[in-house]
Structures are given as structure tokens and as C-alpha cells.
């Protein structure tokens, strides 16, 4: 799960960089970059952090 979380987080960055070549319109780039940011946030909060919360110290009592 850690590896998947890291790959998804990195994927968000790659999507944002790809906006530079996928379109030349400012609006199009804006949408793609925002998508990239959302993907990275999902990788950090939805996958990586979720994995660590599963084994959190406070759940072990």
C-alpha cells in the first residue's frame, strides 16, 4: 500500500507536468494541473495516511 500511495502521489506531479504538452490553452492547463494536485492529495491522504492509520499506535491500546 505504501508503494501504491507513493506512485499515485508522484503520478499527480507527472500529470501536472504533462499539462505543458497536452494543450497550449491556459484553461486546459489549469484543469489538468488541478487534476494532478487532486491525485497527489489522494495519494498522500487517501492512501499513505490511511495505511498508517490502520496500524496506529493508539489502536493498539
Amino acid at each position: 500500500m505504501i508503494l501504491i500511495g507513493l506512485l499515485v502521489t508522484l503520478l499527480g506531479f507527472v500529470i501536472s507536468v504533462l499539462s505543458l504538452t497536452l494543450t497550449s490553452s491556459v484553461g486546459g492547463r489549469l484543469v489538468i494541473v488541478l487534476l494532478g494536485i487532486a491525485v497527489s492529495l489522494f495519494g498522500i491522504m487517501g492512501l499513505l495516511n490511511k495505511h498508517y492509520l490502520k496500524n496506529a499506535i493508539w489502536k493498539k491500546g
Partner: protein
Amino acid sequence: MKTTKRLLLVLVVTLCCASLGLSQTPAAPAAATPAPAAPASKAITEADLAGAPVPSADARAKGDPDGSLTGTASDVTVSDSKKGISIGDLANQAGQNKIAINFVWTLVTGFLVMFMQAGFAIVETGLVRAKNANHTMMMNFMVYGVGMLAYWLIGFTIQMGGVGAVANLGGTPPLNSEFTITLFGKAFGLFGTHGLFLVHKGTYDVSIMVLFLFQMVFMDTTTTIVTGSCCERWKYAAFIVSTMFLAAFTYPIFANWAWGGGWLANLGANFGLGKGYCDFAGSGVVHSVGGMTALAVAMILGPRIGKFTREGKPNAILAHDIVIVLTGCFILAFGWFGFNPGSTLGASGNGGLRIGSVATNTMLAGMAGSFGAMLYMWLRYGKPDASMSGNGLLAGLVAITAPSGFVNPVASVIIGVFAGVLVCISVEFVDKVLKVDDPVGAISVHGANGLWGVISIGLFADGKSNYGGSWNGVNGSVTGLFYGDNGGQLVAQLIGVATLLGFVFTLSFVFNLLVDWVVGQRVSAKSELQGLDLPEMGALGYPEFELKTQA
């Protein structure tokens, strides 16, 4: 209570109306009287210089109580003493004076930034429990030495080795080698290659020494952010290794992309996105890089024992000395006058006089941040929380760091107030939703507000700044969406945000995961309960105090 809330609401509405009124007030019409014609310029001749009044030796021997005889033509360095002063001598002296002013400015502001280490140290130490005071203080103390060593060895080379000419400091010509790859038909600068040990490839140079000192203290600020989020459970050996990597690689790589001539800075020149990624003094480069790394390490470390109940509800673990916390915030606010105005790298030439505006913007946003945070906490919880007011001040300062050179005072206050509220919401989010333990709120202060500062340029940059006619190699002034830009600048800023979240976070996480596997990031439960002063440092921070053990 209700009366207090009503009074506060009236105050807020009044302030908002005042700021709107101020921002919408049309400028006074220009005076009808024509500007006086400039006097016809006359070339200076060698004869003029020969006739320049110079105090006699007798007059100087009597002393100069009013200062009128000191600093005259006789103080200009001459190349040929027999010939006397020449126009060439005069021009050289003027050039050297300009660079000297800029050297002194950059060095003194760098010294102010260095003093911020003391502010960070006592803010963080005050916010932890007394049983961890020595450990937290030592981490903050040693980031200076450990970080500097790594940065001197290789970090500065990666960051600035290919920056090219820094005109305000006299050129820095040896820093001229950037490693680039070609992507989408454009050159993408990735890292510099000149400057190892500050002697490599001609980098033993006065202007490069000034640049190194200033950039080094910025990097050190980044490393000290992480210690705040990870205190009270971070193994000291792991902290040393993690800090060296951050100073040697993570920070310099992103700093190169933003400030060292790398690909982010060239988004404007290569892809028509405004002036490229702009970050005047480092909301992204310094604070978000620190914030992202702090988040990564805090997630790997896990929360302190007792921070969450078995149901996952957060417990408040109180600061042991709020007096030094707020004193530290004041020291940081003072040091920020070096951080932002110093980032002009000069006070003479190329828009150097903007230092007045940059300093005032910094002051306003910091004030607005503390005000916004205090008001938010007061309205939400019924009391003006001291530590969050301090964090609000820092949040405002973090947020204005990137835009301070490009925005006007009204925008600075808006950016600061938003930052003050954002830090409170973000602290709650990190605590209650993410359940990541951040004892000092560094992820919110530096991470979240660093990103806000980066984005705010794309919105609020007013197009009035002029630092030599261009920025990042694109002619014109940095302009945001609210001041007529087509959104290209905002996209460039958001690509910077995506890089911080997607690349910097990942790089920091992977390296610190390796450290966790090899060295182990977290202390034992026994050490944590005892307090880290004795098990990790061998001495208590307060040996004469009787400390209560918190299970």
C-alpha cells in the same frame, strides 16, 4: 459572551469595509502643473575632477566634528597617483559602492535570518513538554551545523551551480553550469554543477560567498521546520541523517528549479505561463518544502503516546512555557525583515528600493495573520488562544514570503488574514481528520500556508514591481489574475504546488522510509514516556525541576 462576539463581528465588518473602501478609492488626479524640464546633462571632464574641492591636510588635522570633511574626492581610489583622479576611477568607485551597498544589505539581512534559528528553537521548545526541552532545543541547535555542512558540501552546488549572473551581487560568473534535459522540445534545468566546497571551478569568489551565506540560512530555516512536527518522539540519530539529506538534496533540488535557473522558473520563457514560477522569498522553496517533509516524517513516526484516545479522538498535550513561545514568535517576526526584504539581494539598482514595500508588506501580513487567528479562535472557542495567535503571526509571515515583492499593502493584509484563519482550520484538519500528530502545528503553518503564499501570487501580483525590467527572463512585471493576467501566472504557480505535493513530498517520504528501515525513526515507548532528555541527550533540560510523568 454574546456581547463580546457581537463587538468582534462589528469590528471585523468595519475593518472589511475600510479595506474595501481603501482598495476601491480612485487615485487622486495628477497635478495639472507640468513637470519641470530636466536640466541639460553635461559630461564630466578630467578638468572638472582636477578642480574638485579637497580638504587640506591642515584642515583635516583639526578633526571633523560635523562630518563635512570626511568622504570627499580625496577618498576615491585612484589607479595612478601621479595622474590623480580620472573619470575611470570615478566610475569604478561608483560601481564598487553599488555592489558594496548590496553586499552589506544581503549580509546583514542574512544575519537576521540566521537569528531566526533562535526564534524557532524557543517556539518549538516552549510548545513541548518540559521533559523533552533539552532534546528539542538540541535538534534546533544542531540543524544549523548539520544542515550547513551538507549544504556546503553539495547542496549549494545543486541549487545555485547554474544560476548564471546575479547582477545585484556583481555577476557571480563562475556559477554557470546547469545540468539540463530536453523535454517537450524545451530545456529543463534540473541541477547545478559548479560550487563544490565553495572552491570548485572558480567559485572562491566574493560575490559567491555572499550568495552562499544568504542561501544557507534560508535552507536552515527549512530543516528546522521538520523538528517541530517530529519532536517528543524522534530518535536523535535519525534526525541527523534526515536533516543532512534534506539540506544536501531535497531542498537544493526544488530551490534550483525555482531560483537556480531550473525548469519551474522557465515556465514563462518556455511555455508562455506568465513570468514562470515565482517565489520571491520562499513560501514554496523554504516553507512548503519544510512542511511537506514534516508531514512525511510525522506520518512515518506516528503520533506521540497519549495524543489520541482508542477511539481516535485527539487529546491536547499542553505547551510547557507559552512565554517563550510568544517571545520566539517575536524573534521570528523580527528575523522575517531579513528574510523577505533581503531577497532583493541588494538595496541599490534593479528595483532594490522595493525593500521598503517588501518590508511593509511583511509587517502587515504578519499582523493580519495573528489578528485573523486570534479572532477565529475567539469566535469558535470563546477564548483568544495564545499559541494559535502566535501560529497566526507565523502563518501570515509564511504566506506573504512568496508574494511580498509583487503585491500591494491591501493584498498583503488579505493574504495575511486568510493565512491566520487557514492555519487554525488546517491544524484542526491535521489533528482530527488526518490524525497526524504535529506538536507545534508546523505542517499547517509552513506547509499549508506556504502553498497558499505560492498561489496568492497568481491572484494578487499587481504588476507594479520592476526588478530590472524582467523576471525569470520574461519582460514586464509579475501580474496575477485579479490585475489583468490571463491566468498563465496562476497555472505556473499551481504547477509549483503540484511539484511540492507530488515530487518533494514523495522524495522526502522515500528517503525517510529508508532511514526508518535502517536506523529506526522512533524512540522506544519507555524513552518517550520518560522524556527524551535523559535517554537521548543524557541530561535534563531543567534538572532542578520536579517533572510529572504523563502516561
